[in-house]
């Protein structure tokens, strides 16, 4: 079963704009991770935020986590055409080893 629900399913923006993707989940987590997948490729890890963290940055990426609302958001600032990809959130529950449960993803298109 899929734990994460992502919103929106698809997002189209112009280069230079910011892109925000949201993820909601159902059960308590150890951490939440965001991955990027370019068409026809494997997934690439972007950022991991632990359950006791509220915000994390990595370059142009900003992730927030609200455990009371069981939700997370990924913000990509100053987007580039190369950011065009599918973005997935994945939740890890501490009692299940390394098992990740992925959402269905947000398809981001950045137009030059």
């Amino acid at each position: 079963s899929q734990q994460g629900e992502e919103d929106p399913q698809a997002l189209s923006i112009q280069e230079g704009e910011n892109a925000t993707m949201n993820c909601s989940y159902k059960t308590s987590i150890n951490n939440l991770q965001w991955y990027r997948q370019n068409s026809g490729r494997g997934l690439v890890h972007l950022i991991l935020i632990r359950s006791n963290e509220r915000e994390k940055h990595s370059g142009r990426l900003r992730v927030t986590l609200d455990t009371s609302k069981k939700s997370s958001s990924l913000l990509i600032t100053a987007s580039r055409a190369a950011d065009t990809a599918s973005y997935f959130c994945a939740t890890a529950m501490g009692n299940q080893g390394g098992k990740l449960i992925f959402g269905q993803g947000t398809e981001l298109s950045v137009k030059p």
Partner: protein
Amino acid sequence: EAGVAQSPRYKIIEKRQSVAFWCNPISGHATLYWYQQILGQGPKLLIQFQNNGVVDDSQLPKDRFSAERLKGVDSTLKIQPAKLEDSAVYLCASSFGTGVGEQYFGPGTRLTVT
């Protein structure tokens, strides 16, 4: 460091045939995962190995899917016999430890069952 290797990259078979996928994880990674990703969906875990032992295979359709990780390094995933609904990308991933950290994914094998 070399990434996760998978082969083949593409496979087309007819239903009821068998198929096998191979994965070589990043050197030194104790944990190996096989995921199934159906078009338009996120990856779904099929099986997780820690060294050469199975940690989780709760979502593996055991009547037709099997996997092994001999010597705690390479792994193979087999489907026998294949069904149309098995058409998907099969992703292998590995992680260094046994906890809940980041996973490194291979490029995947795209399987088409006709």
